């Protein structure tokens, strides 16, 4: 029991990869390094994938890309209304990033989303997007008025939501990934060979994918709620 506890304690801390020898040493955690790896892979894939786009006679990769973009635009339009496609690039980027971060555990790296700071940053970005969009599309007065809907009595609850929404987004992603990571570590401790494989498919691939979808979907829904026009 004690041994497991010590092991879990180690897993919960984010290891420092290296220290920049500046101003007395800036520690760079492993989650930052893996984040940069993920970002580099995504940027490289985007640069290579969109190099020779043709108007006539597009190849198979281009058709796949176009399908993905169409899907994203349709999804945002369905869930967020006419202004939805404005947010499609951001939502697509964040979903790819979270997906890759979640499933990178398969390659033996530490998933960055296991670090509370990473998920907190993502949640704060979502909160800024949600309330920024609300004020952007309704103006200052209209945006403030949005807090009094559907009736003024609900004002305190709407104000509480400003804090609760990012907190729940952050904790949901963090808790799921950390939980999956801990369970995988326990399984690996008990049976190091063969047995972890099916569990890894569920916990790393399936759960990671679901959580990426849920995070982006909730963000899209909250933004859509904020920018919705009255019928």
């Amino acid at each position: 029991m004690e041994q497991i506890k010590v092991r879990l304690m180690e897993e919960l801390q984010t290891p420092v990869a290296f220290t920049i020898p500046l101003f007395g040493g800036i520690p760079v955690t492993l989650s930052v390094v893996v984040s940069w790896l993920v970002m580099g892979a995504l940027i490289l894939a985007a640069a290579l994938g969109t190099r020779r786009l043709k108007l006539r006679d597009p190849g198979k990769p281009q058709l796949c890309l176009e399908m993905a973009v169409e899907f994203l635009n349709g999804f945002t339009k369905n869930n967020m209304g006419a202004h939805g496609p404005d947010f499609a690039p951001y939502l697509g980027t964040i979903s790819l990033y979270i997906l890759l971060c979640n499933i990178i555990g398969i390659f033996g790296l530490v998933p960055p989303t296991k670090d509370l700071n990473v998920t907190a940053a993502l949640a704060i970005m979502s909160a800024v997007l949600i309330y920024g969009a609300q004020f952007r599309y309704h103006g200052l007065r209209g945006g403030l008025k949005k807090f009094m809907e559907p009736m003024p009595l609900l004002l305190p609850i709407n104000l509480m939501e400003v804090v609760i929404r990012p907190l729940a987004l952050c904790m949901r992603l963090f808790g799921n990934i950390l939980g999956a990571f801990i369970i995988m570590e326990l399984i690996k401790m008990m049976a190091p060979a063969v047995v972890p494989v099916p569990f890894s498919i569920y916990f790393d691939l399936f759960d990671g994918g679901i959580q990426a979808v849920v995070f982006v979907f909730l963000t899209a829904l909250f933004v859509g709620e904020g920018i919705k026009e009255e019928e």
Partner: protein
Amino acid sequence: MEIGMLAIGLAVFTGIGAGIGIGIATGKASEAIARQPEAAGKINSTLLIGCALAEGTAIFGFITALLILFMK
């Protein structure tokens, strides 16, 4: 020590609520899709949102358990 372990067990019990909630939601959603297959897209998105929110309670319980385990 003993009472802390008890507290951790109780905190993890929140999982039961989330399990029941998601189970009911999924059951009703499949009923709804069986009745109205053309509304499957809308039902799916509502279901996903509901599941995510219901699951939040389990996650908070889990994080509370972890905090008790480590802060003790």
